[in-house]
């Protein structure tokens, strides 16, 4: 048991870190968390018997938005749960992090697991939910084991289970692991998977708040979303909002990967300039020039360097620049990269991960992949670029879940911003960048 993690200097996640403040890789245990002031939000709520409505109002005011990708206001989501409902209700944490470029929830869970537990316990209290599940990406088994240890610690110390800290509030929390399916990061696919089925998304509506796990009212939030909650309760909604920008409250953990000197997670205030984030990640590797950035995970539109260098990292600014903040996965590409090759790898991912339920996605992702493959390998035809956009059009918005959109959006953006590169492959029947890069 336990992870082979070499401790690192506190502050690795950035000077403005809130969720990851003081984290050294070695101080993940309950006592460490308590020493950092952990569980004080939960204690305060239970001691002062703060009304659930007041907590939800506070969250709404904080402008905390879902950190998993959709950016939906958390307080609003919590308010959708039926009040006074007599039957079972569930709270689910989506830790099935598998969007290429995204690796923040892994660090939260392995380095600061109790902040997630506290955040979920507060959510359970606010929505009157007795049972929760934390669905963890199957590929990070060591993190699953760490969360199991953390749950055992929290339960033994009375922060989970029956009559928490001597109050009337009870909440049982369990970990559940996936076993290799990107689609289970989609919330209704995740619920199907939790029920012991293939992870194929459900039609919405009904939304999980009315028909969720086992058909019962359910709220699903991302790991980082829950992890932000204790700070908001302790410090107040205004303070959290003040960390970010209006409608973009708080800090956000950005997973920076690709051609940077120090790939890793950096927690910054929403609204921090991209240039500053790039600097935190050590700048470009080997002093190369920035070419392109996917600012929110592989599903989001790519943006050229000049646009990114003028953009701030918050939901609204990135949307204005023509992409989305998504999960906060920042994939950086330098001047040596072939955009066709980059898109080809992403297209293969969506082709591989389509669950096969909806025809436009099941068939369309294969068409996209095969067409980009032939362009990359010098067999593209003049009409292929328009055809790619046409296929993307026929996937997007025509499927049950957003995987189809996620496959289509990168294609359109890569062609929009780097059409000349695609055209060059077609005209000259070759790629200028060798395969081994």
């Amino acid at each position: 048991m336990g992870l082979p993690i070499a401790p690192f200097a506190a502050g690795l996640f950035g000077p403005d870190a809130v969720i990851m403040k003081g984290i050294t890789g070695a101080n993940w245990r309950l006592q460490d968390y308590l020493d950092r002031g952990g569980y004080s939000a939960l204690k305060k709520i239970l001691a002062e018997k703060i009304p659930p409505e007041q907590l939800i109002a506070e969250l709404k005011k904080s402008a905390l938005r879902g950190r998993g990708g959709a950016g939906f206001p958390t307080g609003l989501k919590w308010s959708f749960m039926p009040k006074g409902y007599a039957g079972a209700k569930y709270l689910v944490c989506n830790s099935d992090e598998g969007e290429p470029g995204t690796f923040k929830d892994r660090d939260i869970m392995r380095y600061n697991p109790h902040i997630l537990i506290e955040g979920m316990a507060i959510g359970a209290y606010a929505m009157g939910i007795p049972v929760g599940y934390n669905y963890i990406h199957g590929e990070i088994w060591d993190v699953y084991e760490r969360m199991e240890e953390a749950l055992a610690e929290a339960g033994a110390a009375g922060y989970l289970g029956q009559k928490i800290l001597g109050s009337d509030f009870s909440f049982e929390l369990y970990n559940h692991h996936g076993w290799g399916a990107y689609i289970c990061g989609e919330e209704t696919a995740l619920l199907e998977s939790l029920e012991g089925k293939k992870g194929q998304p459900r039609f919405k509506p009904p939304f999980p708040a009315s028909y969720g796990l086992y058909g019962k009212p359910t709220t699903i939030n991302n790991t980082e979303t829950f992890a932000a909650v204790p700070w908001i309760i302790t410090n107040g909604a205004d303070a959290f909002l003040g960390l970010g920008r209006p409608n973009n409250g708080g800090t956000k953990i950005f997973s920076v990967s690709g051609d940077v000197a120090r790939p890793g997670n950096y927690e910054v205030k929403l609204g921090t300039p991209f240039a500053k984030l790039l600097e935190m990640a050590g700048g470009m590797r080997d002093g190369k020039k920035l070419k392109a950035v996917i600012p929110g995970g592989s599903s989001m539109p790519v943006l050229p360097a000049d646009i990114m260098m003028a953009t701030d990292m918050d939901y609204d600014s990135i949307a204005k620049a023509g992409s989305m903040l998504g999960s906060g996965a920042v994939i950086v590409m330098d001047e040596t990269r072939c955009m066709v090759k980059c898109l080809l790898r992403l297209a293969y991912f969506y082709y591989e991960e389509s669950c096969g339920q909806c025809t436009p996605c099941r068939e369309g992702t294969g068409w996209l992949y095969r067409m980009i493959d032939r362009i990359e390998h010098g067999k593209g035809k003049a009409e292929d670029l328009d055809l790619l956009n046409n296929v993307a059009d026929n996937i997007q918005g025509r499927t049950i879940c957003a995987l189809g959109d996620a496959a289509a959006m990168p294609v359109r953006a890569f062609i929009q911003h780097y059409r000349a590169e695609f055209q060059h492959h077609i005209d000259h029947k070759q790629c200028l960048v060798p395969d081994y890069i």
Partner: protein
Amino acid sequence: MNAPLALSPAALARIDQAVAKYPSDQKQSAVMAALTIAQDEKGWLSTAAMDFVAQYLGMPPIAVYEVASFYTMYDLKPIGKCKLAICTNLPCALQGATAAAAHLKQKLGIGFGETTADGAFTLKEAECLGACGDAPVVLVNNKRMACAMTADKLDKLIEEMK
């Protein structure tokens, strides 16, 4: 249905622990854990192993097959003693995974989806393992994430797992 195949008492105890996480009328929720435990013990999931899990959890065998064939980390055919899955997705590829994958193929003398002649290694191409910051990453036997895998570290890993 094939003849039922029994798992060890220790494995059954672990499955029972998983079952206890879910409401008593929702034993099926433990199917992913049960299949993982069965695979850990048997090396791969034969039809007999899946049938056993179906019987144990009171599920129709077809429902278990559906789950086992949907999630990529279940092996429905015998594999090598050590399974190495390297992520080659874009963020990893930008951080050296393409070269690392080529090194593994050359060193083991096999391609993706193949097993070495001595049955020691199976090599797989993985999609996002959720650890891009530590690229190149190799998932060893489903449960151990080997990080920042340079050619040197890959050689040591192969030596260790032989």
